[in-house]
């Protein structure tokens, strides 16, 4: 480990600009002639648009134009699509209804975009929007997935009868039913995973610029994956061919999944720019973000877990209803299927598993991946169920888990996944020791003496990162490959640019990726720049989500570095008249092993570009590209323990301690990994204690601001006790697994297990607000 190489706690290179207000976000971009856009959105959860009259608005001060869905359709702009095909168990393809970037006939949720106003200022655009007269015929609405499946529920899309999008299954239903029928004990539980709003600090924004001279579009946007945005806008939405469309995602202030997807606003602003002849910028306000950013989770599941007489799990049966909202967002179908049911084995050897998943349209914001995407749903379900089973069986929850752990690898689960490596007991032991599990009884007695209820709960999670390989996900319905690309460009003076297809929106790639290169070549970290987020600068790449940028993105850099190093060694050997096998790269020099001959890195780079004296037949230059397609997912795993104290008078939960023991494989930068875990835990604790999206019965969003949607604040959180175990991932060159989502995946069940332990009522649902805990305590007594 060098001071700047792999394993070093290097402070983030990018933080100077972020912390001094010098970041350059989409909303900071200005171009000559730029105008402001305001979207007119449906105030109804479900309605037919009878007419739109924009004549008065168009003549208002500063207004350039008002454009609607009929005009958009007439210009051939396509519908938004879901990019992952799922087939129902009867073999029929998922029933995808049309999602028009601007609704033309029907609106299906409050916030559905209906028209765009372009004006000199945002104030004038909003004034004009109020003068657009839209005649709606309100239709009955439904917001709950279970209610949407009932006979007589409002029909949301003609394509999906009974609002059912697909009825899918994974695993062996017969073997599972047989095992349940012959079980010594069956634990049954209903699990609700609450609906969340992602709330990145930076709201979504986009700037569409049409250049009529070149017939070319530029799209600045808050995206986690600008190349995917370009591909989709080009291939499916008919905005422009790829070579006529440049997508730039500059500094992006957080995404958590919500900025993976292509939303109507990017498409409409690009189209409106051509239509009006002016660059068009739109920036979401916070309430608009609540109303339109893809939500997360929203599952209701019935679970049966069967045990033999020795308390070994023999089967798991899961029946899930997942709410996908009013339209199918870009990866919405994959989240409650291949990112969820495939993780239902958890850390346990379960011989038979069957999951049935029905996805449903409702008159709500589209639901898609949110930090963890499917794995938090699987983990919450499993870890609440096994905890409940331990209580029913009268055994220690730690020992019940320990007894059922998978211990030999690779391990093939009954639900597709093949776990490559792991040591679940190591994390369990580390967490129990850090939490002083043995001392809990004494601490509980102390709490009781002061009138408080103390509880402890754990969660042993596993997740899957670096979603892969392309061929496998293709066979499961993915519309894209899931590899990553990198170009390592050595300049003539030896400084280095790494062009990565990953995208950093908080992850610190500019630091960790540079650490990798600095460590390999022994050059200063400041001589390395990481370039990302611009389709004109960077080769095709797949972007950042699913904790993939380390395991997949950095592996691509390793491959490109391998090629660069090989060429540099050839040049050095030639210049020093030695055998290339004897050249080693160390401390910024290319040395001939066993001699005092050495050339500084920059001289070799210069030689590559002067090309005065290269090996015969060698091309000039020092720049290599690599594409890396992983052989498998990676499987981070760990054990989290929460200890809480409840105030029985108010129902308030105080988190006394929170322990996280994670196996992320090898770690590039511990400082950044700890930050990722802290952030993930904050979001998981937010889900468990505070956050929930609520609609009223008419489909109006009740939690449309921070006045009603409770975000975790610093004083809601304890100081976290972290530790890392390490079973290096055998499937990528760096042995890394990914750490971006684990905190959000593993923490909710640990907390709810702790709270239900404290109050003696297992029927608590998230978020465990003071009122709900107080009510549950009253119900329990």
């Amino acid at each position: 480990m060098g001071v700047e190489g792999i394993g070093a706690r290097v402070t983030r290179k990018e933080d100077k600009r972020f912390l001094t207000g010098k970041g350059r976000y989409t909303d900071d971009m200005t171009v000559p002639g730029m105008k402001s856009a305001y979207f007119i959105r449906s105030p109804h959860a479900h309605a037919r648009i009878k007419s739109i009259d924009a004549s008065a608005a168009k003549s208002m001060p500063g207004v350039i134009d008002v454009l609607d869905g009929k005009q958009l359709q007439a210009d051939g702009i396509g519908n938004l699509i879901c990019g992952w095909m799922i087939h129902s168990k009867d073999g029929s393809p998922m029933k995808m209804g049309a999602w028009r970037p601007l609704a033309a006939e029907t609106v299906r949720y409050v916030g559905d975009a209906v028209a765009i106003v372009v004006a000199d200022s945002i104030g004038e655009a909003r004034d004009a929007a109020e003068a657009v007269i839209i005649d709606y015929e309100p239709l009955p609405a439904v917001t709950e997935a279970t209610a949407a499946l009932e006979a007589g529920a409002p029909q949301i899309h003609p394509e999906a009868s009974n609002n059912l999008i697909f009825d899918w299954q994974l695993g062996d239903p017969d073997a599972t039913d047989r095992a349940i029928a012959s079980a010594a004990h069956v634990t049954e539980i209903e699990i609700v995973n609450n609906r969340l709003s992602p709330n990145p600090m930076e709201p979504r924004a986009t700037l569409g610029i049409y250049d009529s001279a070149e017939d070319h579009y530029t799209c600045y946007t808050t995206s986690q994956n600008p190349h995917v945005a370009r591909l989709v806008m080009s291939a499916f939405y008919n905005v422009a061919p790829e070579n006529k469309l440049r997508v730039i995602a500059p500094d992006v202030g957080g995404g958590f999944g919500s900025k993976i997807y292509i939303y109507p606003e990017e498409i409409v602003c690009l189209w409106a720019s051509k239509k009006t002849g002016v660059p068009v910028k739109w920036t979401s306000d916070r309430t608009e973000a609540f109303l339109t950013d893809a939500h997360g989770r929203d599952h209701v599941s019935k679970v049966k877990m069967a045990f033999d007489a020795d308390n070994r799990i023999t089967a798991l049966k899961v029946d899930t209803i997942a709410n996908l909202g009013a339209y199918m967002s870009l990866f919405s179908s994959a989240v409650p299927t291949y990112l969820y049911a495939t993780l239902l084995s958890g850390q346990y050897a379960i011989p038979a598993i069957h999951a049935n998943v029905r996805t449903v349209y409702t008159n709500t914001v589209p639901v898609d991946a949110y930090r963890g995407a499917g794995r938090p749903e699987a983990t919450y379900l499993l870890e609440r169920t096994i905890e409940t089973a331990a209580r029913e069986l009268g055994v220690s929850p730690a020992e019940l888990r320990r007894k059922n752990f998978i211990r030999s690898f690779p391990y093939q689960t009954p639900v597709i996944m093949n776990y490559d490596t792991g040591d679940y007991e190591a994390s369990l032991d580390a967490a129990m020791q850090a939490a002083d599990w043995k001392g809990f009884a004494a601490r509980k007695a102390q709490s009781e003496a002061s009138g408080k209820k103390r509880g402890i709960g754990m969660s042993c999670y596993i997740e899957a990162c670096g979603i892969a390989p392309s061929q496998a996900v293709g066979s499961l319905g993915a519309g894209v490959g899931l590899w990553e690309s990198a170009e390592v460009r050595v300049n003539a003076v030896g400084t280095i640019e790494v062009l990565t297809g990953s995208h950093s929106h908080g992850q610190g790639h500019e630091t960790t990726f540079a650490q990798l290169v600095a460590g390999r070549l022994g050059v200063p970290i400041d001589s390395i720049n990481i370039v990302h987020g611009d389709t004109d600068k960077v080769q095709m790449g797949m972007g950042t989500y699913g904790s993939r940028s380390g395991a997949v993105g950095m592996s691509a850099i390793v491959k490109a570095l391998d090629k660069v190093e090989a060429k540099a060694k050839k040049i050095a050997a030639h210049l020093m008249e030695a055998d290339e096998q004897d050249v080693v790269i160390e401390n910024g020099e290319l040395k001939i092993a066993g001699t005092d001959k050495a050339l500084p890195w920059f001289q070799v780079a210069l030689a590559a570009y002067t090309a005065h004296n290269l090996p015969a037949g060698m091309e000039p230059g020092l720049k290599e590209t690599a594409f890396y397609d992983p052989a498998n997912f990676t499987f981070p795993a760990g054990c989290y323990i929460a200890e809480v104290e409840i105030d029985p008078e108010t129902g308030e939960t105080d988190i006394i301690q929170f322990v996280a023991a994670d196996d992320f494989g090898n770690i590039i930068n511990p400082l950044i990994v700890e930050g990722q875990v802290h952030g993930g835990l904050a979001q998981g604790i937010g889900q468990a204690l505070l956050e929930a999206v609520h609609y009223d019965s008419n489909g109006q969003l009740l939690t449309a601001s921070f006045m009603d949607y409770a975000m975790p604040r610093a004083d809601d959180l304890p100081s976290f006790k972290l530790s890392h175990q390490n079973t290096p991932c055998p499937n990528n060159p760096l042995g890394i697994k990914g750490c971006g989502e684990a905190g959000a995946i593993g923490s909710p069940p640990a907390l709810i297990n702790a709270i239900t332990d404290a109050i003696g009522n297992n029927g608590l649902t998230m978020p465990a607000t003071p009122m709900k805990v107080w009510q549950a305590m009253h119900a329990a007594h």
Partner: protein
Amino acid sequence: MYATSYHRASSVEDAVKLRAAHEEGKYLSGGMTLISTMKQRLAAPTDLIDLRHIAALRGISIDGREVTIGAATPHADVAGSRELRAICPAICELASHIGDPHVRHMGTIGGSIANNDPAADYPAGVLGLAATVITDRRSIAADEFFTDLFETALEDGEIVTAVSFDAPEKAGYAKFNNPASRFAMVGVFVAKTSSGVRVAVTGAGSNGVFRHSGFEQALASNWSADALSNIAVDSSNLLSDLHANAEYRANLVKVMAKRAVVAAG
């Protein structure tokens, strides 16, 4: 926000004049509610007349046990006043937990009580202390001042200039935060004043801040948290929302009242 004109009043008379000249104008005294409402286009005053810079409206004066807080005094000044803390720490504590530091340096006591948000803290303090609300026209007893949700006894154009009260023998405030907004989901101010025991509840009532006579009577005969244990809180007139239904609020009213008594000592 709709276009609006900003006026910085130099005196109360100046403010009254400006207000009279602009029929659709509004006084601004911190704007911690008004400005966000305007940003949402839910309010559209043509003119804002800022009272915050009128020197006569700022500051805390103490004469013996008589306290006068100028209407444009920000919460941070009340929270940080050593002289006030020496004779009425409860009101300083209350002010120190309003909103966040930004709010406490912009928001004012006059702005808060004139707005009379049912979840605001100051109405409980002002009512609990049996304070007098002084305006440019008259003096109004706190019991007469708060009339309903976002409604007060103020007439059109009338300006709160100060709040005055006698420092109580004892007082305490306990508040349970709304988990999202951190406004008071329930806040209870208890005080032993020269005119008797007073218990004022904010955050909970369907008609805004209210006094709890059952608690007052119990505490008058026995100033202790235990004295409240067997007194019922009627939930029928309490607010119900996502974060707290009326039944839970009724529970919190009692729990916070007890804690306020403990805080008062």
